[in-house]
């Protein structure tokens, strides 16, 4: 390319779509400077090239990662896509360029900026997902359990197996408010669906009672002589507290989960099935 315009790719925001951007770049031998989704901020002057998601192209790129780099790299790229790293698309793109050049060795290039940034972002994702295995709080509505989380990274795919395995015979939903997505498990099947708005019914007496019991246990179990709020904050930063029963105010214990309350008493889900897990 001899003109000085920046090459900007726009894709549908799916992992498959991103892999198609990689395909486009390699087949046309051009290097994009931005890869974005329609909802990302656009600069005034650029004109983006729309990259259509094509499952055949996706497959070719995805398989080539395992074949030409390594299975570990394939996993890292998939996980990288679920992180909240700034411009994760370009990070993954540059990682793949390095990978195609150096092969499996790229995974040990920990002193390289791209590799270390991507690995750090993935560590942030996996550690946050591990935290949520503990910090998720369900409310029990008769036969259904519902939890709301507000993670920074897209952790649902990483915690899905854990909860589905744990509550095999139950039906539950974990709603990720940050990403407007929900993990729904029902009849032994898990699904990730888009949910833009969630309205929950009132909780019953026994739910309120267990919330109180839990809050009381939480307050009792701390040893006063060892009080250490700073340590607690390091291990469980305040951003997690909003959806945790032990930190709810009295009136919140009596009602539905914080922030999700709505006068109508039904659950509204806007179904738009996405990729299965």
């Amino acid at each position: 390319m001899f003109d000085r315009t920046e090459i900007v790719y726009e894709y549908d925001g799916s992992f498959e779509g991103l892999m198609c951007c990689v395909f486009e770049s390699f087949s046309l031998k051009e290097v994009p400077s931005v890869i974005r989704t329609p909802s990302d901020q656009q600069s005034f002057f650029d004109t983006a090239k729309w990259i259509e998601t094509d499952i055949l192209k996706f497959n070719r790129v995805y398989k080539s990662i395992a074949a030409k780099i390594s299975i570990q790299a394939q996993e890292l790229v998939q996980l990288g896509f679920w992180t909240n790293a700034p411009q994760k698309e370009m990070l993954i793109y540059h990682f793949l360029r390095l990978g195609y050049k150096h092969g499996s060795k790229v995974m040990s290039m920990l002193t390289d900026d791209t590799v270390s940034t991507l690995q750090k972002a993935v560590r942030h994702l996996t550690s946050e997902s591990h935290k949520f295995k503990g910090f998720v709080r369900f409310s029990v509505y008769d036969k259904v359990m519902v939890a709301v989380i507000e993670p920074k990274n897209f952790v649902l795919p990483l915690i899905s197996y854990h909860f589905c395995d744990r509550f095999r015979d139950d039906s539950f939903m974990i709603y990720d408010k940050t990403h407007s997505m929900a993990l729904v498990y029902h009849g032994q099947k898990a699904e990730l669906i888009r949910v833009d708005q969630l309205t929950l019914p009132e909780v019953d007496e026994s739910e309120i009672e267990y919330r109180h019991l839990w809050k009381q246990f939480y307050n009792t179990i701390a040893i006063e002589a060892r009080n250490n709020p700073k340590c607690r904050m390091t291990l469980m930063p305040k951003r997690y507290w909003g959806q945790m029963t032990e930190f709810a105010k009295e009136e919140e214990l009596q009602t539905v989960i914080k922030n999700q309350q709505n006068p109508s008493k039904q659950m509204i889900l806007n179904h738009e099935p996405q990729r299965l897990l």
Partner: protein
Amino acid sequence: MEGIDIDIYDKLMILSDSAKYDVACTSSGIDRRGKQGSIGNAAKAGICHSFAADGRCISLLKVLMTNVCIYDCKYCVNRTSNDARRASFTPAELAELTINFYRRNYIEGLFLSSGVIKSPNYTMEQMIKALTLLRETYRFNGYIHVKAIPGADSELVSRLGLLADRMSINIELPSQESLNLLAPNKTKDSILRPMGLISHKIQENSTDLVKFRHASKFVPAGQSTQLIVGATPDTDHKILTLSEGLYKKYRLKRVFYSAYVPVAEHTLLPSVDTKPPLLREHRLYQADWLLRFYGFEANELLDEQNQNFDLQVDPKCNWAMNHLELFPVEINKAPYEMLLRVPGIGVISAMRILTARKSSVIDFDGLKKMGVVLKRAQYFITCKGKIMNGFKISSDITLRALMSDQHKLLNGFAEQLSLFSDPPMSREEVSQCLTEPR
């Protein structure tokens, strides 16, 4: 008489309040998948569900079956001579509470302990009843940690072990003299005998499992114990040597240390306004880590001349400063075992160094990029033969000053110190503390 018209809130308060001095709350040591028709699974790394105001992880519903106790151990809140409210859970109440907390993902499972009611055997039978109900009727497949009661028949210990994932017997006081003084109803033998039995059973069971695939598992997540620090004059050397023996001889998974919190006025005990020795407890945990993951032996860290840890410097730094002839080590050449002995380099950092060495020569900038913390390490390493910033600390005193945890010694560390949050325990050690690696 109390315990008759007492509601579930009061019971939970009384029985968790009297269980809280047990430090162990880990849910680690076993991976177990969920089962059709059951609720629950277990994750080997353990999962923390919350953190209490004291910064300790809450993983299990930690309660006593009852806080009624016939014993009179001077250091214990539940001693018979203490004028406290008493309560007991029925097996059904306990099972309901556990299952309902578990479904809401408040907890990873149950940690059940008990005061000794009527006799050790009777107490154990009550605990077996509760766990049987939970496992069989409520189909609970999550984590259970149970305390064995010293003095109970071995047949009961065996039955209890088949229902639990982890079993522990608290030694509490690290010597027979201290036991005689403060826990006249307990002897070293009454504690060590069941520990030996559990350890024997675990080994026997692992050969059974090879022979019969469906043999039930006996405490698959192993056993642990707790030692109280600071209630008696026992030295760190004595405590650490005891721990080392327990890891080697009884194959314990964990030894926990509990800074003594005065709960009773007694001439034989520190006065009630004594602050719990949290920094000393912290040093013991650091040393315990060095034994388990860093290839250290107790007598490398302490000896007859130095019986207690220096509170100013962490045990690994202290060791390194006494062995300056071994440093600096070259990051690009040193074997894994030696990397682990560098202050500030933990297991994860050492592994990353090994990985990165495969593709390039590492410099200080590279170390930073891969997340190795250089604050302490810089004085003990070279990269490509060079020292960081080109300056060398020649005096031991300067080095010691650089290594010390000044901030902890100022303004009353008892309040300030956190077990996990400060640098001498690196970030990776924090996650190990919480999760206990495979």
